[in-house]
């Protein structure tokens, strides 16, 4: 299994969840764990570029696949990923617990569909719960993320997005 581009050892036990494998075995604690039954969306990661719940996958199921976590979006000290930048600009977070899940959900959508409709964009975050913000600023951030990621708008957005790296 490759996690953020790095080869990682096989999980020791089949019943290890992917979320627990990332957090406890690899120390990648950016993936948060909330409800552990697929409702809250905090644990969302990309599996081969597609947003999935890491708490609803066994780590062994990731073998032979590419997993991307929030830690894989921007280099330490480097520019933020456009979706991270959008959440930053629009104050799309308060306590931050739900944020990695929201960001990965939006990244998953924009990787597949760089020019989503308003409906698709909002649908992409309906599966994530936030208990602080009331969602208005998160919706704004999601729309800003689409602007920053659009090839037409890219010039005004932050540089150095890591797609494909």
């Amino acid at each position, binding site marked *: 299994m490759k996690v953020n581009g790095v080869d990682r050892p096989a999980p020791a*036990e*089949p019943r290890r969840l992917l979320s627990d494998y990332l957090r*406890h075995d690899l120390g990648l604690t950016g993936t948060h764990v909330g409800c552990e*039954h697929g409702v809250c969306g905090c644990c969302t990661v990309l599996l081969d570029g*597609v947003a*999935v*719940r890491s708490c609803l996958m*066994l780590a062994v199921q990731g073998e032979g696949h590419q997993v991307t976590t929030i830690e894989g979006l921007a280099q330490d000290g480097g520019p933020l990923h456009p979706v991270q930048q959008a959440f930053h600009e629009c104050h799309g977070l308060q306590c931050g617990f739900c944020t990695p899940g929201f960001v990965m959900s939006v990244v998953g959508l924009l990787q597949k569909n760089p020019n989503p409709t308003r409906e698709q964009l909002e649908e992409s975050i309906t*599966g994530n719960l936030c208990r602080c913000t009331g969602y208005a600023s998160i919706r704004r951030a999601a729309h800003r993320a689409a602007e920053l990621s659009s090839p037409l708008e890219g010039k005004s957005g932050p540089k150095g997005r890591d797609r494909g790296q």
Partner: protein
Amino acid sequence: MQSRRDARRVKPPPFGYHAPGSVEEACALLASLDDPKVLAGGQSLVPLLNFRLARPQHLVDINRIDGLDRIYERDGGVAVQALARQAAVEDSSLVARVCPLLGDAMRLVAHRVIRNRGTVCGSLAHADPASELPAVLLALGGHVVARSARGERTIASDGLFTGVMETALAADELLVEAWFPASTAKYAILEESRRHGDFALAGVVRAGERLALFGVAPTPVLADASDPTRGLQPSGDLEATPEFRLHLIRVLTEKALAA
């Protein structure tokens, strides 16, 4: 290094894990193992494991089987194989053309990120009485294809759902394909839930003259459009009383018939 404390952080109960590479191998495992359970998308099964509500002795993970994710036209309808993700069915132009009711239903199933992984056949085999897809299959009069080491058989939708999360599938059978007839006539799927993506308090599927209800009985049920609540005794819970569920069925049926 993994500490002792971390090593205990496992939620699902222990199980034997098997990842067959072919349908034949999967069927052989299902025939020989004691208390096996098929793992496809895992969006219903893994929560049950995490809460230890399900304790199968063995999991047969079919995700490594190649060529089991096709969505194709068959007998004038749409066939959806066991590993076709709900998101792929939602995005399928074939489904939009031949069976748009199925496409509409998909948008009511949980959330997009769940549908990225969840499968149509898995929802049918799981047979949650409040879920959409069993009722869609029933309204359309579709069927599923079950494979085992003993052979293959077709199970019609009206004989598939036998109880709450219970189906006519035998323990050694793998649901390899679901077939949805074309929905050319007037169709609608309408449901009421507390939040978008939640399980429905009550729902109605109309396919031409056929009406199927979900969320109001141990299985999806066919209903008479002129008196849709006849014989129904839905359960009540914190979210809805039985009377409210019956009210919803009447209102949703009226709307579906106007579609």
